[in-house]
């Protein structure tokens, strides 16, 4: 990736509208709107799924129908009409035996616009990209290199066909169908997503990455990601999202399940930049995601996220520290501007002995946005010597936004050591003055200070992502000063 300079930023700042707000005209194979058992059967049939999965989906649908949409989160929005959404949309030219050459040239152009040219990615950054457009995986690269190591990295629908026993064993084992409203919905209607399996003792040689986009108007996206790291393996997984500018609200309800077996380590990084709605708060994506990982003995799961997009975010990547000596980490930057609302955080459930967890959450609110941290640290009676450190810092820009902290701390073991601290502040005028004095204008000074504020989290991102994330922070906060 070429170096990002200040001039580039300046150029970008001139175009105030959502940067990635273009729309590619691809003929889509889209279902009529609405959700019922027939639609679910049709999705399942369309994807040639085995009987057990169809039943599993129908069961999830039954559970979902009896559930009510949760209202506890600190967000306000018009509830989506689940009967006004089309639950399946696939680019027509998707070919099961796809190679890069088979991919619709128009799509490739879209990716180039997004700065993720597959060729370039392949050659320069050594990242295998499983590109997802409107729920169907259209290109998978580096599959061969990975296959040599025995690593499976493919779309979940392929995995259902090729590795049904693995999928059947692990799907829904961390996030059960009954978990919550959106997880149940996802279980019923998920159309695609990624599947990753790292065999015993293998260290995945490259960062695995998927790009999600929403492209077809009026289609919700229901991704399902399943990452299984077998004993003593290691994988770093990147996920990035961009979505085109659109007027009506779009729903995104993904489920991500991570399984880290004994001595395994999973690093899961997200940069989320869905369309946040325009400056008047119109439009934007609803992002209701359930992400959870389970750690066996000596395993480690690390979540890193940079959340800059979406009109409404509702996301709590969690770790179940089941095994002894397991480690959970959560590093997050959530930026909200204009009318965005974010309610995000994590859950650390300590079950095993000598388990450790770290939570670093940085919230930046600007404009008229509301940014909440909501987290749970739970130490069960058997989790001796559990250790937790949480830090939640909020930065407020302007006096119309809000920053909120809702930590829940539950300790049932006397050997637990828990620390939680939170601060709320604004960028000091003296800091800006200091920068101005040295010839740095206010806008850049703020970018500089925000970068410093978020450094602890940015440092945790893989290199390629860190650059992109910094850029995103600057763009998201642009125009919020003054």
């Amino acid at each position, binding site marked *: 990736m070429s170096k990002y300079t200040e001039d580039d930023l300046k150029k970008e700042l001139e175009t105030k509208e959502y940067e990635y707000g273009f729309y590619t005209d691809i003929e889509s194979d889209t279902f009529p709107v609405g959700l019922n058992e027939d639609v679910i059967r049709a999705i399942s049939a369309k994807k040639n799924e085995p009987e057990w999965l169809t039943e599993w989906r129908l069961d999830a649908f039954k559970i979902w129908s009896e559930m009510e949409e949760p209202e506890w989160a600190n967000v306000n929005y018009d509830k989506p009409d689940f009967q006004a959404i089309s639950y399946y949309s696939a680019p027509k030219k998707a070919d099961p035996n796809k190679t890069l050459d088979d991919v619709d040239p128009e799509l490739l152009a879209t990716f180039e616009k997004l700065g993720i040219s597959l060729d370039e990615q392949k050659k320069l950054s050594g990242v295998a990209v499983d590109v997802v457009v409107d729920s169907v995986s259209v290109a998978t690269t580096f599959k061969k290199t990975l296959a040599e190591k025995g690593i499976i990295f493919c779309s979940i629908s392929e995995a259902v066909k090729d590795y049904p026993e693995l999928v059947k064993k692990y799907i829904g084992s961390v996030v059960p169908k009954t978990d919550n409203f959106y997880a149940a919905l996802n279980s019923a209607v998920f159309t695609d997503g990624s599947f990753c399996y790292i065999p015993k003792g293998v260290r995945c040689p490259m960062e695995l990455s998927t790009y999600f986009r929403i492209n077809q108007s009026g289609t919700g996206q229901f991704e399902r990601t399943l990452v299984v790291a077998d004993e003593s393996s290691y994988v770093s997984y990147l996920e990035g999202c961009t979505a085109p500018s659109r007027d009506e609200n779009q729903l995104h309800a993904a489920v991500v399940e991570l399984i880290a077996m004994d001595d395994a380590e999973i690093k899961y990084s997200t940069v989320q930049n869905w369309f946040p709605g325009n400056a008047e708060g119109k439009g934007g994506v609803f992002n209701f995601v359930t992400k959870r990982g389970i750690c066996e003995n000596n395993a480690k799961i690390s979540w890193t996220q940079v959340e800059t997009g979406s009109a409404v975010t509702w996301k709590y990547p969690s770790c179940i520290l089941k095994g002894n000596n397991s480690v959970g980490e959560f590093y997050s930057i959530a930026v909200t501007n204009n009318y965005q609302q974010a309610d995000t955080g994590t859950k650390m459930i300590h079950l095993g002995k000598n388990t450790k967890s770290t939570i670093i959450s940085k919230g930046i609110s600007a404009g008229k946005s509301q940014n909440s941290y909501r987290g749970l640290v739970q130490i069960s009676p058997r989790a001796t010597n559990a250790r937790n450190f949480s830090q939640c810092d909020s930065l407020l820009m302007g006096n119309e936004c*809000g920053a909120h902290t809702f930590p829940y701390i539950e300790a049932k073991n006397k050997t637990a050591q828990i620390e939680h601290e*939170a601060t*709320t502040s604004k960028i000091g005028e003296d800091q800006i003055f200091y920068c101005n004095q040295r010839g740095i204008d206010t806008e850049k000074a703020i970018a500089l200070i925000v970068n410093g504020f978020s450094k602890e989290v940015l440092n945790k991102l893989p290199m390629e992502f860190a650059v992109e994330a910094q850029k995103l922070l600057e763009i998201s906060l642009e125009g919020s000063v003054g």
Partner: protein
Amino acid sequence: MELKEKLVSSFLAFESTVDTKSTVHDIRTKAIKDFEAFGFPTKKVEAWKYTSLKNVLKNDFALFSKNEVAIEYKDVKKYFVHDLDTYKIVFIDGVYSSHLSSTTHDKFDVCLMSSALTQNRFKAVIDVYFNKVAKQDGLVSLNTAYSKEGAYVYLPKNVAADKPIEVVHFSTGSETAMLLQPRNLIVVEDNSEVTIIERHQSLSKNKTFTNSVTEIYAGKNAHVDYYKIQNDTTNASLIDNTFTEQHDHSVASVHTFAFGGEITRNNLNFTQKGQGIDSILNGVTILEGKTHVDHNTLVEHTEPNCESHQDYKGIFDEKSVGVFNGKIIVDQIAQKTNAFQSNNNVLLSDKATVNSKPQLEIFADDVKCSHGCTIGQLDESALFYLKTRGIPEKEGKALLMYAFANNVLDSVKIPQLKNRINALIAEKLGVSIGFDL
């Protein structure tokens, strides 16, 4: 019959015992309707997530005491700060005890709610302040509906109370299970000052459930110092709803010392209506056995240039449960607010539980707000150090716990009261340290 139905249907009988012509009558009638709609809080309510009243509400409570019980001062002397000269308002099973009390109407009023609600000369104050600060929820509405007795303290402008006021509620077990609903009103007008010590004490093994509401009004430059001592038996449950409204440059502090009780819930609310206000909320909780203490605080900063300080320390042994649920709200116009919240806990047993939920809701940007929460153990090396100096483990632990709670204890301004609290803590920890701390 369920307690709720019993309370609703007994309302008419209660009304007939009080003056139905006063303005309070309308407030009571509305309140019982509100209670009927709200009911008792359940664990499904977010603010009651960690505290269940289910077991307490199962009892068949008597709402009024049938027998009058007399208590001799010498029997209950230890529950007063007896080495301190104070005004006293004492209730036995919810009924005022004149021979234990010492009230005044000289310069300011220290008397009874029942007088204040019925006598004409208090009407002006009651009309302005009664049931104005309290936020209505199920329990507060219930108390309002049955509001009849409690402490009434009124300080007009520019008066400092010459001695502290003790408010003590005894329950004698004259009924197998008794529901008490004291209602207190403390009005401190501009430039006035008062110190109040409140205590609830059960003298028998019979069940007692107290649902108390206290409204505190602090005018400009007023100083209110309020101490709550909660060291009741494991048969007594207490829900203490305290609402404080403060005006320009007033300082109000509430210190809660919670050492016992089956279930103790402190709903402590501060509303700041003016500038330059300081609100102080301190608490020490030391529990053992099957006890449960829940501190639920809310501080609302609605105007600029104010401060709030919260410091809650908890030590939990055996099967005790400690809950801290603190909330700070900073409104958009409340710029330059400094709000601090700290909750530190020590767990001494594997069966003990701490649930902490320190929350911030901030809508203004030029503020300094922070909260911290820790759960941990006593420092092993410090304990070892004390042992090498010949201090036995038990005493060493107690010393460390004193040190842990010390900055809250330091905020107690009356030396005699501080001694009493130190003695209570020593009794709790089962040690005699042999010197004053």
